[in-house]
């Protein structure tokens, strides 16, 4: 190739580079469309937002780790998708930062004497972002759509007990259930109300992209680039409360260090998820405030024991669980050999609460504060195993199995989901304590899908470390211990207790909150007494925001959720 040829090649590539850079012009500026007159605040070539005088306007930038998987509320599965739905849609009932159910599109709701028919009153001035009013027809359409579309993974489950939905008038409707239910409100908290006039025209509501996201929420979708950002514009005509800022931008910054750096720099104003190790760095920054608190959707960590009875083994399952785990004494001893506070201090740097069982402390009165868990006591654990007959015959430090059990010694396979950052450290700590009571572990991390294929409902495991995010209602997570969930794969333990199944069925139709609470506490008591699983902790959420750009963040409430309309509707620029 000649030198001239090389020059041409270079020129060609440079032209290509410029073309690629030019190929994607940015979205039309949003501020021009909205507040006519006011500018500044969202023009930003240099990096950080200049605060606007007057305490109104501005663009809040939030950095998060992922990106919505779908703009169609029926299909959305990821947490990031739900951030966006909360901003652009309303629901009938919402959960406030105290954990209490509050009216949103519904002004009130009442149940009939037989407990099966609910009458719901709607606000009369709510409108969708295209100007159309929100009526009972929209609510009926939405609930029926969610209920009847099985392809919607989560939203199809909430209304599944609503047998009949009738429109009484434009702002009143009646919902009927077959049996009375104790969790009516929690079923409506995520039922984002869709405009019937848009969705009824759609051919396939599952394939429907919903690119415009016409909803009645306080923000509208201004621009969206999958995997990069979601740009939301404030709705001045929102029926409840118009946001004080002009725009909210959710920016995808996958790498945690880059996200922390972006906040420290002022490129973004809020982060809701970052490694606890960065807390110290951020606290040294004068313009950043770090806050910790209970999340709105509480999260728990659990250690699952495979205790399935071979008789209950589902058809295609392997059921290779270690026989000793079916012994209550062994499970109780293992439970006594977990120092929950130590795990919280080491793995979470203190940001957590010691756990009890499948109902997190964040669910308020549902949490069984009257049930005692197992205190950390290695001596008691050792004693219990001695008494049960597990001795270390060959002196290798691991207790042998009982003669009638089909196993050699207490060596358990210990898996964990490798998308949990703190898991390796936690498993290391737990294995260390168990070693001191004569139990050995073979540790292996697996990615979530592989772990699912191994455990549920294959039951081809002994012990694993995973976790759950809890729904506002305790029923969902507690159903994991039902016998009927063994075949579905949702029961990870294989626990089967007819008394538990019966009590669960009772609480599902109990309408008196006090009685239901007692039953829910009793269910938790059973799980603890039978040492079904160990819950080391309930996580706290740690979030951080810049103090020099926006003010009014609701960070001193019982629950912390700064990327939610509860904060984003009220924050305003610093003056």
């Amino acid at each position, binding site marked *: 190739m000649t030198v001239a040829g090389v020059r041409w090649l270079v020129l060609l590539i440079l032209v290509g580079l410029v073309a690629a850079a030019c190929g994607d012009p940015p979205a039309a500026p949003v501020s021009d469309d909205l507040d006519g007159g006011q500018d500044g605040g969202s023009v930003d070539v240099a990096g950080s937002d200049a605060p606007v005088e007057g305490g109104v306007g501005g663009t809040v930038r939030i950095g998060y780790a992922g990106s919505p998987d779908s703009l169609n509320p029926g299909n959305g599965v990821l947490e990031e998708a739900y951030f966006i739905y909360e901003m652009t849609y309303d629901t009938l009932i919402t959960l406030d930062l105290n954990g209490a159910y509050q009216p949103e599109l519904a002004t009130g709701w009442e149940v009939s004497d037989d407990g099966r028919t609910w009458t719901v009153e709607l606000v009369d001035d709510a409108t969708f972002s295209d100007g159309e009013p929100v009526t009972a027809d929209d609510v009926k359409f939405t609930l029926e759509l969610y209920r009847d579309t099985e392809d919607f993974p989560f939203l199809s489950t*909430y209304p599944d007990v609503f047998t009949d939905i009738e429109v009484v008038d434009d702002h009143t409707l009646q919902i009927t259930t077959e049996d009375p239910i104790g969790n009516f409100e929690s079923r409506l908290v995520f039922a984002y109300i869709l405009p019937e006039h848009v969705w009824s025209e759609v051919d396939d509501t599952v394939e429907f992209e919903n690119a415009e996201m016409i909803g009645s929420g306080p923000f509208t979708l201004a621009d969206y680039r999958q995997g990069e950002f979601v740009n939301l514009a404030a709705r001045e005509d929102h029926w409840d409360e118009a946001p004080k800022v002009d725009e909210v931008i959710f920016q995808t910054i996958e790498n945690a260090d880059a996200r922390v750096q972006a906040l420290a720099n002022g490129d973004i104003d809020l982060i809701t998820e970052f490694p606890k190790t960065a807390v110290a760095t951020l606290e040294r920054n004068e313009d950043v405030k770090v806050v910790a608190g209970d999340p709105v959707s509480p999260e728990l960590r659990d250690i699952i024991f495979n205790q399935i009875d071979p008789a209950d083994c589902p058809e295609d399952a392997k059921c290779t669980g270690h026989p000793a785990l079916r012994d209550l004494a062994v499970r109780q001893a293992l439970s006594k050999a977990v120092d929950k506070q130590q795990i919280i201090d080491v793995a979470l740097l203190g940001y957590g609460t010691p756990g009890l069982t499948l109902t997190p402390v964040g669910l308020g009165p549902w949490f069984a504060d009257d049930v005692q868990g197992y205190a950390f006591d290695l001596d008691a654990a050792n004693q219990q195993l001695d008494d049960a007959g597990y001795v270390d015959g060959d002196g290798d430090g691991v207790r042998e199995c009982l003669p009638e059990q089909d196993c050699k010694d207490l060596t358990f396979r210990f898996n964990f989901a490798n998308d949990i950052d703190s898991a390796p450290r936690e498993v290391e700590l737990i294995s260390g304590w168990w070693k001191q009571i004569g139990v050995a572990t073979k540790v292996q991390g697996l990615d979530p899908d592989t772990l699912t294929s191994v455990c549920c409902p294959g039951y081809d495991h002994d012990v694993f470390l995973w976790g759950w995010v809890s729904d506002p209602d305790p029923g969902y997570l507690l159903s994991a211990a039902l016998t009927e969930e063994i075949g579905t794969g949702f029961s990870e333990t294989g626990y089967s207790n007819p008394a538990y199944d019966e009590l669960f069925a009772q609480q599902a139709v109990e309408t008196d909150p006090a009685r239901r609470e007692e039953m829910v506490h009793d269910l938790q008591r059973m799980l603890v007494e039978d040492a079904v699983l160990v819950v080391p902790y309930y996580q706290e959420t740690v979030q951080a925001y810049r103090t020099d750009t926006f003010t009014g963040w609701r960070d001193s409430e019982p629950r912390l959720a700064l990327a939610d309309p509860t904060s984003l509707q009220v924050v305003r620029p610093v003056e």
Partner: protein
Amino acid sequence: MTVVVVISFNFVLFRVLPGDPAKSGMRDPRLDEASIAALQQRFGLDKPLFVNAADPTDTQFVAYWRELLRGNLGTSYEFRNTSVASLVGRALANTVWLLAGAQVLSILFGMAMGLLAAWRRGTRIDVATLLFALLMWSLPTFFLGILLLFVGSNWFGLPTGGRFTIGATYATWGEYLLDVGRHLLLPSLTFTLALLAQYMLVMRSTVIEVLSEDYILTAKATGLSTTAIVTRHALRNAMLPMATLIALNLGFTVSGAIEVETVFSLPGIGLLTVNAVNSRDYPVLQGAFLLLAVSVVLANLVADVVYGWLDPRVGDA
């Protein structure tokens, strides 16, 4: 033919991974069996993989090829409202945006440094450039990226990621290009530094070999200037292996640069592929690997042609 084999092999390969796409990422008590069944049906996963006694054409394998030949790459399992084509296309655009400049710079700088080091072989310049290149090559790209990110954003006020300032309004094209340039600077620099070592080292060794040839000695003896010797003789001959290397590297560009993409929030093909593996998103994986297979095969073809053009000795014999 290669592409056909690769695609078929990939089809099997992805399905060997344990895990059910219909449940992936949806581990939640609210996911009931009816929903899982509905999703499996929608994805076509309820059909047999290769062999269907009842109807031989109603298998997943046949369905895949049928759609592929129609130009339909399918819909993502994870982003169930986005087509694979648009996901891969968008990711590819981002990757090209990031890597085009970096590839050019690393080629140019790599070649220049290699040439310089070879010409001044044994001197301090040679040692210095060699050390620099090896250092850059041995530093993990991820670490280099984070390092440059901290230095760049703290000391030089450069942005921490993205392609441009989201939601910004620009008065002129110049402002837009400036914003894009500022965002492109650190990621390109990272990738260039990581990549130039291989060009530099290959160039250096090739040029050293060429410089030891007799005709170079003749050229010096006939009084040709250094520049003339370098450009007209050494460079032209050293370009042969370089051209192949460049063509192949450009072919692999399409597999993305996962570390740089993650650190600087530039979602390209690398990130798309890794996420798709984690969520068992077969259609996206198949689409991305199809792209890669075609790209590498094409690059190979181009390399053959360019080599033949460059070197008159490689004829049609």
